[in-house]
């Protein structure tokens, strides 16, 4: 099992969710985060003065999937979350040693 952790534009989240849904990847956990990377912040204003906000709100999706599903999930996210402009986000893959379904106590892949 792998954890696919994708940090994407908040405004793309609904589309990504729908695309994953259509491919059968329903389960996910989502966190509202802030981040920065190449994107060096956006300019805002407050009572007549401008300032740069460098931590930009992003949405983080965490999905634990079977090893063989990783590529498809990553591709699906990329295809929908990509605008081609700086700030589209990153996806990180890590190994998951075990998964447990609280409701049933099942372990391993069948619990996903």
């Amino acid at each position, binding site marked *: 099992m792998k954890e696919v952790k994708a940090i994407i534009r*908040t*405004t793309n*989240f*609904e589309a990504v*969710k*729908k695309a994953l849904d259509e491919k059968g990847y329903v389960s996910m956990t*989502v966190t*509202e985060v802030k981040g920065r990377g190449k994107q060096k912040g*956006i*300019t*805002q*204003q*407050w009572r007549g003065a*401008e300032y740069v906000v460098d931590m930009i*709100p992003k*949405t983080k999706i965490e999905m634990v999937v079977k090893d063989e599903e990783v590529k498809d999930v990553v591709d699906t996210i990329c295809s929908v979350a990509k605008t081609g402009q700086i700030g589209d986000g990153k996806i990180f893959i890590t190994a998951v040693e075990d998964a447990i379904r609280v409701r049933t106590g099942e372990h391993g892949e069948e619990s996903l």
Partner: protein
Amino acid sequence: MALAAILLALLASPALAADPSGDITIEENPNAALDFAWVLICGFLVMFMQAGFAMLETGFTRSKNAANIMMKNMMDFSIGALAYWAVGFAVMYGTTEIIAEVMGWGGFFLAGEAYDVSTIESWFFQMVFAATAATIVSGAVAERCKFSTYLIISALITAVIYPLYGHWVWGGGFLSEMGALDFAGSGVVHALGGWVALAGALLLGPRIGKYQRDGKPNAIPGHSITLGTLGVFILWFGWYGFNCGSTLVGDALRVSIIAANTTLAAAAAMAVAMFITWAWHGKPDVGMAGNGAIAGLVAITAGCAWVTPSASVLIGIIAGFLVVFSVWLMDWKLHIDDPVGAISVHGVNGAWGLLALGIFADGTYGGVAGLLHGGSDFFVAQVFSVVVNFTWAFGLGLIIFFILKKTIGIRVEATDEIAGLDLSEHGMTAYPNFIHSETGRGD
């Protein structure tokens, strides 16, 4: 620059003022003291309704547009007051006889003869009404209308659309000559604002994400039920100024019945709207209860001085049904996206208010009697008034929104709409110290 020139001219102009100190007026009519106190205090309450509209509207929409909605609600009062000072009042109540059936003329910039305590008392009370009409539109076009365009609409409503129709009903124009009445403005203010809002919502189209591919509407819940409800309470509070102040004098004791009627219609409409949603969806709906209260207030506005308390309850009950049904109709059948329900609340129930007056007026005050009390002519006049009101406000609204759409544009870019108008129109967020979330809506 042009404005500066006008202002300088105004400052330099010889004083033709009628009674700017009030000395003559009070001498001639000592009762004027109470009249002024009454009308002004009621006017203050009506002004405070701006806060109510702002809170209701922002509470019922998403947090990413909250600052934009605040801005619109502040600026429509600002622009509205200035436009009504410069032009609106003059074409509504100006006394120069040119085509008195259609429009007034005189008193631009409250200068010359209009520099008079009575004239300006009247201006003040009318100005807050004009601004109310303007601000109604804000709710229906929320979350997608360009800010610059919205300013123009506000100016046009307060300078032209409201004053002209207002003249016909309250300024001695042709509707009043036909016998049509509207005590505090179910039609003049609310339906008028509501029908312009309808035109706006129609030409703007629904918000992104409002409709699924199959036409089924998504709910887009508002971001703060507490602020929205605060808005309902503020509006209800201010409405006492709206309706009771419309006596325009301080010694019309009927005003106690106006206050009671206002309360009862709102209470009944709120309860009915709540119970309908309860019966329908299994749970009483908070937002619809709020909409219901305002619907009841709108519906009783025209007739509040002329009907009985019991009739007010009945008018409110029907208003409760109307608002729930109309919101459903807009959402599910007509596919007109009205984020806060302004069209159903102000348009539909404003029209109902005019009709209800024509039906229930009981003849005990000022001899105004509706259909149930033998006033069939009066009822016909009211029906006609409803038609004129709709035609004027919706028609002119369509024309104006259409021209603006073809010229400067009326809607923000899709990406800006998705990011929120706070960021795109004002470069800010309304709640920078909180973590936001819009995720979670199924579709």
